[in-house]
């Protein structure tokens, strides 16, 4: 696959403190890549360096094989959908979308603007101002504005964080569908692992400025390269260097007949989660394990003697 964006040993320090530390990463053309990690892990700084708002202290950034470290933001063919969208409040939707095209000195961009607005389903709202739009509509204007320039890489900074929680899942799917349709490389920053897992082709997990792992969602979730990645992407029951995710844990009153890893213990707490039940179990060995089971699997009371078991193939080994 063709590489569109490449980072080689990129570092950034603010006042001597490393924020991004020797990150190397390459992004393939057309992929939807998520940079994720807890707040302060350097993901937004990384994005700002690609956009040109920060200059790396060390390392090089290549776009289409050309080093762009010294290029100012307005000469890089990458565009950003900002966290709070940064729509120009004094311009209409149409003027916002046209802004970048005018900078490029293009003429006859009317058709392009129309297409882009249609793509994000904003047709008919061309003459509204940002303060006359809903949160979801504003986001779509920001995406349209960035898409209109047909960038090599379109970057999204926490694209769903400003949206109503109810809207997020829906927009997530729309965003993915949109990316597939236009085929432009998306580089997205998020602190929400669920968002990263469900949306992207590949995920990069960062912590304290350092790259922890890059890979497909299934790969990083099921075969995390270290404990941080495993914990960041979801809960893990650690037993020494072996970990089992709660959804891979089974709980039953009877001893399972399968060939499986089995422990015995008692139910210490049950939590009803709606779509599942979370069981805290206290093993006879004194360990605590958390299991997430379907409520169809039977009813459990605190103090019930149970068997907790899982398949070796579901273990995470570091």
């Amino acid at each position, binding site marked *: 696959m063709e590489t569109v964006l490449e980072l080689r040993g990129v570092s950034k320090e603010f006042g001597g403190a490393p924020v991004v530390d020797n990150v190397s990463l390459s992004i393939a053309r057309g992929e939807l890549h998520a940079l994720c990690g807890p707040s302060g892990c350097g993901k937004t700084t990384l994005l700002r360096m690609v*956009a040109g708002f920060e200059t790396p202290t060390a390392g090089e950034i290549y776009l289409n094989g050309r080093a762009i470290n010294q290029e100012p933001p307005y000469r890089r063919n990458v565009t950003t959908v900002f966290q709070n969208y940064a729509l120009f409040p004094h311009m209409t939707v149409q003027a916002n979308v046209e*802004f970048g095209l005018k900078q490029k000195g293009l003429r006859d961009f009317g058709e392009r603007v129309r297409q882009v607005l249609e793509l994000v389903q904003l047709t008919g709202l061309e003459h509204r101002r940002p303060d006359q739009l809903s949160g979801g509509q504003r986001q779509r204007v920001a995406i349209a504005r960035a898409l209109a320039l047909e960038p090599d890489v379109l970057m999204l900074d926490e694209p769903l964080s400003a949206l109503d929680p109810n809207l997020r899942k829906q927009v997530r799917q729309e965003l993915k569908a949109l990316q597939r349709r236009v085929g432009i490389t998306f580089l997205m920053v998020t602190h929400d692992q669920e968002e990263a897992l469900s949306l992207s082709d590949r995920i990069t997990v960062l912590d304290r400025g350092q790259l922890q792992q890059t890979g497909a969602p299934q790969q990083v979730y099921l075969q995390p390269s270290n404990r941080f990645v495993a914990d960041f992407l979801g809960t893990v029951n650690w037993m020494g260097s072996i970990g089992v995710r709660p959804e891979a844990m089974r709980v039953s009153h009877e001893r399972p007949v399968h060939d499986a890893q089995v422990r015995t213990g008692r139910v210490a707490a049950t939590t009803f989660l709606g779509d599942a039940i979370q069981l805290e179990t206290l093993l006879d060995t004194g360990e605590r394990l958390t299991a997430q089971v379907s409520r169809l699997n039977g009813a459990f009371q605190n103090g019930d003697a149970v068997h907790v078991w899982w398949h070796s193939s579901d273990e995470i080994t570091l």
Partner: protein
Amino acid sequence: MNRALGLYAIAAYSFLHLPLLVLSVFSFNASRFTRWEGWSLKWYSAMAADAALMEAAANSVIIALAATVGATLVGTLCAYGLWKRRVAWLTGSLYLSLVSPEIVTGVALLAFYQWAFRFLDVQLGMHTVVLAHVSFSLAYVVVVVLSRLRTLDPVLEEAAMDLGATPWWAFYRVTLPQLLPGVAAAALLVFTISFDDYVITSLVAGVDSETLPMLIYSTARRGASPVLNAISTVLVVGLGGLILFAERLREA
């Protein structure tokens, strides 16, 4: 307690506004003394007929307009620069100029001009007054425009540059349009403080540049004058209107 406060407020507002109100009423007095003898507009026509007065007023308008253009232009650019980058000495210097007693600013400028005139073949006049006014009103512009800038989202300019705009173009197309109400308010403020200034102006003015406040001052020192009442009324209404307009812009 609220009733007591209300009564007090009436008294306080009377203290603030009655003197000017009474003065305005007496500008319509037919008598030249402070004894009411019926309504008349004769002091207003006397005012309009006074050539020296009209010339002073014209001088004041010219000076105020020039100072407004200069201070607003330089101050707006400066505020924008300070919004982007902290320059401690410049900020400090501007604040110091804001709190300097007028008389000190005035004598310092006078001393500076006299010193500079040793090397230049110029004299005190309208130009020295204009420069002085630009100088002391610069800080006002910076304060007003900067407070407006602080309400703007700095990410907007990044967004503009991200979409291909150069820094100048981003300023011109994105920041300036949103800044205009603040700039206009600053300009009106400069106009009024420049038009109104007596202390500094009287020190750096030349023989050809008597301003309206200078004329008002010398008349007031000589004694009561019903024409002065009329001038005052016109100025209070005019400048007051301008300021109300400016405040409305600042809130916009």
